[in-house]
C-alpha cells in the first residue's frame, strides 16, 4: 500500500474553496484521502513554503491524431528543435510546435499537468488519435469529437429530429471512443467541399438547407438531452476574419435559453485570440475583446479559453478547412488540406508570430484582454490552443503575464504602437493571484469538462492523487514585480505526482506510467437508434470509403479506458 503525506504546503484547491491554507494532503493507493495514519512506509514530503495545487488539466490542446501528424510531416524543420536525448526511463524527444508523442507526455508532466484533452477528433480518424494517445506517456487523456459539418448531423437538424441527432452523437462518441461534442465552423467544413465557406450564422450550407445557427442550437439541445458531462465545444464561424466578434457574441446569444442538464455552461467557445476581432479588414483590424468580456460578465452560460498567442513558431491546425486555405494564401506559405468524407474538412498551416507585426501584436493582446476583463476567473481558461496560438510549453509565460501588469508593460514596449491604440491592454491593471491561476490551469478546466466528479482538478477526498508542488513561496514572492521568478517556478515544478506516484522531481521525469483515456458512453432509446442505424447503413453503403463494421474504434486501441455513462435521465 503506497502512502504519501505532503506536509505544510500552501494549498490552492479552488473546487474545494481552499485558498492558500497551510495544510497536509494525504494520499493512499493513488487517491487523495482525508488523512492517513503514519506508518514507517509512509513517504513524507515537506512542502512548507511551497505551493500545492491539483495536477494541471488542459481542456483544449491538439496533441494527437491525423492533424498533428500532418504538422509533423510538413514541418521536418520543427523536429530540429527541442531535441532531448533518451535517458534510462525516457525516450528521445524532438520538436517544438509538433513534438513527438513521447515529448507531449513528458513536457506536460514537467509543467505539472496530468490530464490533457485533444480538442478535435474526426470520428473517421479516431483510431489514429487513440494510437497516439497510447504512445503519450504519463498524462490522462480524452478527446472531443467533430460533429459540426457532419452529413448525419445536418440532416437530423434539417428534419428537426433532435432525438435522432442525440442518437448519432451517442453513436459517434462510442464509435470514436470520444468524450464530447466539438463543433468547428459549423457548416463551413461541408461548404469547403465545394470550394466555399459559410458567411455567417444564418447562411445556408450548400445542399443541406440548414444554417450554422440551426446546427449549433440543434447540437446544444441534443448534448443536453444526452446529459453529457461536457457542453458543446465551439470554434465559431468566421474565425480568423476581422469583425468576427459580432458573430462570436451572436453565437453566445443563440444559446441563452438552452438549459444545461447539469451544473455547468451550455457552450464552451474556444480560442478567443482568434475570434474577438473588430475592424472590417486587416488595415483597420482591432481588438474587440472588451465587447466579448462585457457579454461574458453578464452571462454565465458561456465559458471560453484564451488560445493565447505566443511569439515565434506555431503550427495552426484545425477542421476549419476554408479558413486555413485563406491563411495559406495570405501568408504565401505551405498548407495541407484534408477532407474527412461525410464528416468534416481540415487544414494545417505552419506560421510564425512576429513582434511588431501589428496584427500579431493585437492578437497577442486579445487573449490577455479577454482573460483580464472577464471578472469571473472560472469563465476563461488558460490555453494557447496548442499549437495554434503557440506550444503549450509556454503556459508559464502566460501565467506570468496574467499575474503581472509590469510584465505586460515590459512586453508591450517591444510591440507596435498600433497594438496600444487598438486594444485596451495597456489600461488594464488587474493582476491575477495564485487562486485565480489554480482556477485557470486546472479547477475550471476540470469543471468545464465535467471531470470533477471523476477525480480531476481538485484535492478533495477520493480525487485522483494528481498533485503538483511548485517551488515558490507566495508569502515571499510579489508576483507582480517578480514575474521572472513566477515563470521559472511554473516552468519547473518541484514535484508532479500522478496517481500518487512521483513522475517529475525538480524538472526531471522520474517515472513514466501509462495514462488513462476517458470516454463517454451515452445510452439512447432503442427506437431512436433504430431510425439512426437505417440512415447510417445507407450512408456507409453509398458514400463512405470504409464499411460500417470496420468503422468503430475497437477496445484494444484504447489503453486504460475510463468509461463515463451518460444518456437520457
Amino acid at each position: 500500500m503506497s502512502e504519501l503525506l505532503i506536509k505544510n504546503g500552501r494549498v490552492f484547491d479552488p473546487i474545494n474553496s481552499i485558498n492558500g491554507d497551510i495544510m497536509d494532503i494525504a494520499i493512499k493507493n493513488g487517491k487523495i484521502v482525508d488523512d492517513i495514519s503514519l506508518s514507517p512506509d509512509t513517504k513524507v514530503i515537506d512542502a512548507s513554503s511551497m505551493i500545492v495545487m491539483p495536477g494541471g488539466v488542459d481542456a483544449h490542446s491538439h496533441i494527437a491524431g491525423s492533424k498533428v501528424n500532418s504538422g509533423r510531416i510538413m514541418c521536418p524543420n520543427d523536429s530540429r528543435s527541442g531535441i532531448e536525448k533518451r535517458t534510462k526511463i525516457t525516450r528521445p524527444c524532438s520538436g517544438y510546435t509538433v513534438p513527438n508523442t513521447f515529448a507531449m507526455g513528458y513536457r506536460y508532466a514537467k509543467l505539472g499537468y496530468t490530464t490533457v484533452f485533444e480538442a478535435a477528433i474526426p470520428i473517421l480518424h479516431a483510431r489514429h488519435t487513440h494510437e497516439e494517445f497510447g504512445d503519450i506517456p504519463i498524462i490522462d487523456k480524452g478527446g472531443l469529437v467533430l460533429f459540426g459539418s457532419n452529413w448525419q448531423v445536418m440532416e437530423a437538424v434539417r428534419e428537426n429530429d433532435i432525438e435522432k441527432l442525440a442518437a448519432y452523437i451517442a453513436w459517434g462518441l462510442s464509435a470514436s471512443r470520444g468524450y464530447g461534442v466539438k463543433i468547428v465552423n459549423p457548416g463551413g467544413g461541408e461548404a469547403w467541399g465545394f470550394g466555399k465557406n459559410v458567411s455567417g450564422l444564418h447562411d445556408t450550407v450548400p445542399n443541406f438547407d440548414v444554417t450554422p445557427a440551426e446546427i449549433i442550437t440543434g447540437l446544444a439541445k441534443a448534448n443536453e438531452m444526452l446529459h453529457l458531462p461536457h457542453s458543446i465545444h465551439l470554434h465559431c464561424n468566421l474565425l480568423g476574419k476581422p469583425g468576427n466578434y459580432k458573430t462570436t457574441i451572436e453565437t453566445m446569444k443563440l444559446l441563452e435559453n438552452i438549459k444545461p442538464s447539469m451544473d455547468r455552461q451550455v457552450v464552451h467557445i474556444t480560442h478567443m485570440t482568434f475570434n474577438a476581432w473588430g475592424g472590417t479588414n486587416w488595415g483597420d483590424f482591432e481588438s474587440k475583446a472588451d465587447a466579448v468580456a462585457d457579454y461574458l460578465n453578464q452571462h454565465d452560460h458561456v465559458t471560453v479559453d484564451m488560445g493565447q498567442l505566443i511569439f515565434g513558431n506555431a503550427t495552426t491546425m484545425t477542421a476549419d478547412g476554408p479558413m486555413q486555405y485563406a491563411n495559406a494564401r495570405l501568408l504565401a506559405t505551405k498548407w495541407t488540406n484534408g477532407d474527412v468524407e461525410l464528416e468534416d474538412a481540415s487544414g494545417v498551416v505552419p506560421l510564425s508570430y512576429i513582434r511588431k507585426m501589428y496584427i500579431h501584436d493585437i492578437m497577442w493582446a486579445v487573449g490577455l484582454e479577454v482573460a483580464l476583463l472577464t471578472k469571473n476567473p472560472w469563465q476563461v481558461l488558460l490555453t494557447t490552443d496548442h499549437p495554434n496560438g503557440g506550444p503549450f510549453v509556454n503556459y508559464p509565460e502566460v501565467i506570468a503575464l496574467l499575474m503581472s501588469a509590469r510584465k505586460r508593460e515590459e512586453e508591450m514596449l517591444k510591440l507596435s504602437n498600433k497594438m496600444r491604440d487598438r486594444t485596451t491592454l495597456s489600461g488594464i491593471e488587474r493582476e491575477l493571484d495564485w487562486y485565480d491561476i489554480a482556477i485557470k490551469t486546472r479547477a475550471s478546466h476540470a469543471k468545464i469538462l465535467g471531470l470533477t466528479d471523476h477525480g480531476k482538478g481538485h484535492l478533495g477526498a477520493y480525487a485522483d492523487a494528481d498533485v503538483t508542488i511548485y517551488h515558490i513561496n507566495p508569502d515571499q514572492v510579489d508576483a507582480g514585480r517578480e514575474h521572472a521568478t513566477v515563470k521559472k517556478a511554473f516552468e519547473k515544478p518541484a514535484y508532479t505526482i500522478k496517481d500518487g506516484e512521483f513522475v517529475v522531481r525538480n524538472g526531471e521525469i522520474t517515472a513514466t506510467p501509462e495514462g488513462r483515456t476517458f470516454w463517454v458512453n451515452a445510452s439512447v432509446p432503442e427506437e431512436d437508434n433504430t431510425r439512426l442505424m437505417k440512415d447510417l447503413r445507407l450512408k456507409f453503403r453509398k458514400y463512405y470509403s470504409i464499411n460500417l463494421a470496420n468503422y468503430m474504434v475497437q477496445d484494444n486501441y484504447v489503453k486504460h479506458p475510463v468509461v463515463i455513462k451518460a444518456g437520457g435521465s
Partner: protein
Amino acid sequence: MQTVTLIPVMQSKISIEAETITPNNFAGKTREEIENITIWEGNHKTRLFEFFKIALEGKDSPENTKIIINGSIPRVKRVGEGMTDGMILINGDVDMHVGAKMQGGVITVKGNADSWAGREMKGGEIIIGGDAGYYLGAGYRGESCGMRGGKIIVFGDVKDYAGEHICGGEILIKGSAGLMPGISNNGGIITIEGNTEIPGAEMKKGTIKINGVVETLVPSYKQEDDEEIDGIVYNKYTGDVVAGGKGSLYIKK
C-alpha cells in the same frame, strides 16, 4: 598565426560527424587538446586522433587560424559548421554539409563536396574546386530559408536543387547545374555558366542568370525585353507568377 594540419590516417565506412572541426574550436588549443576533440563515428563517440595525424604550428585567435586537411575525407560530414572566422583548406574531397550554417571565414575544397555544402550559411565564402552534390546552399528539410548570406563558388558541376529556398547571398556555378536550381528563391543571386533545367520554380524574389542551355523552363514566367549584361544579351523573364514572385531570370540568347 595558428596552422593545424590534419592528415587522414584511417577512413571510415560509416559517416563521421565532425562539426567540431572549425577554426573557432581549434584556436588557442594545444596539439593534445585538438587530438582529443570529440567526433562521432555513427553512434560511437570518438576523438580526432583516431582518424587524423595532427600537426600544429603557433597559437592564435580564430581569425588567424588555418586548418589544412591533407587528403580526401569522403565520409567526414559537417566540417566547418557554424564557423565565424579563419580558414579551412581541404586538399581532397569532403562529405555532406561542409560549411553548414557558416557565418564567416573561408573554406576551400580542392576536390568535390557532397550534398548540402553551405547549407543555411549566413556569411563567409566556400570555394569548391571540383563538383558539388545536391542542395548546394539550400535549407534543410522543411526550412523556409536556405543560404542567407556569403558566397559559394563551384568550379565544376552541381546536382539538383542548388540554392533551394535561398534567401540571400550568392552562388556561382562555373559548370552545369542539375534540375531546379534556385527553386523557391527568396532573394539570393545564382549564376550558372553551364546548362541547367527548370530554373527558378516558385521564385519569389532574387536573380538567376544562366549562360548555358536551359532544357525546360517553367511556363509561369513572364517574358520581358532583352537585357545586356557585361556584353552578353539575355532573354529576361520575371516570376514565378505562380508564387506571385518578382524574381528575375536571365537566360543567354
